[in-house]
């Protein structure tokens, strides 16, 4: 059950091999890989830069991983998330979940990504080929119903 934040690329096969090696209770491995797409709303992307909150990133991903393991009774779990400047086609994130059977492994992978998308402290900045640079806006659908600031609250 490990979490790695890195600027380096990861090898999906090697990560899964390392995760499952010798553990013959594992009957199912589910995984998700997020990659940098080459276009944003039809416009060409030059690069994407991921900022994060050192300290909280590891802590939050560890919490998310622990919650997922408990909820889906996973045997093993692995999260690798890259930071820094990435190019179209580059890997961003790997999530791998292991269980005796496929239902828990697959559901855990889905849950973990939803949780990561709404809680893990990373922020993406996109540099487009036309020279514009912008911070990616979070999508409401990716987020829990977080409490909103309200100036009228006393």
């Amino acid at each position, binding site marked *: 059950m490990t979490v790695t934040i890195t600027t380096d690329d990861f090898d999906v096969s090697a990560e899964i091999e390392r995760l499952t090696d010798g553990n013959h209770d594992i009957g199912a491995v589910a995984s998700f890989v997020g990659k940098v797409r080459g276009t944003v709303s039809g416009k060409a992307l030059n690069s994407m830069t991921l900022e994060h*909150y050192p300290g909280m990133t590891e*802590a939050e991903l560890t919490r998310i991983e622990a919650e997922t393991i408990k909820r889906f009774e996973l045997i093993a779990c692995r999260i690798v998330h890259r930071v820094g400047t990435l190019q179209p086609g580059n890997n961003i994130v790997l999530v791998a979940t292991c269980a005796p059977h496929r239902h828990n492994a697959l559901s855990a992978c889905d849950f973990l990504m939803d949780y990561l998308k709404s*809680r893990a*402290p990373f922020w*993406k900045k996109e540099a487009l080929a036309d020279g514009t640079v912008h*911070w990616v*806006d*979070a999508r409401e659908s990716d987020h829990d119903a977080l409490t909103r600031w*309200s100036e009228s609250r006393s």
Partner: protein
Amino acid sequence: MSATNQQSTVTIRYFAWVREKTGTGSETLTLPADVSTVRDLALWMQQRGDGFAAAFAKPDAIRAALDQKHVAPNTKIAGAREVAFFPPVTGG
């Protein structure tokens, strides 16, 4: 600056466009006596100066953490060593 019996020092961190607008990634502050919650601090930021006013112009757009854990805006800061302000996250 006001004299007060209850002053506490915290580290405040800023990320993404909040960091760009304030012009700093972190600072250490003595909290004003009338700042109790995370929301109070965000509203107090509005009157600090150009960059901070711009960053905190829409407090609804900003999220916060205390000691590296997500918190609701009405959470009291007292006891925390680190506060962080950032946009809704976009990892994954």
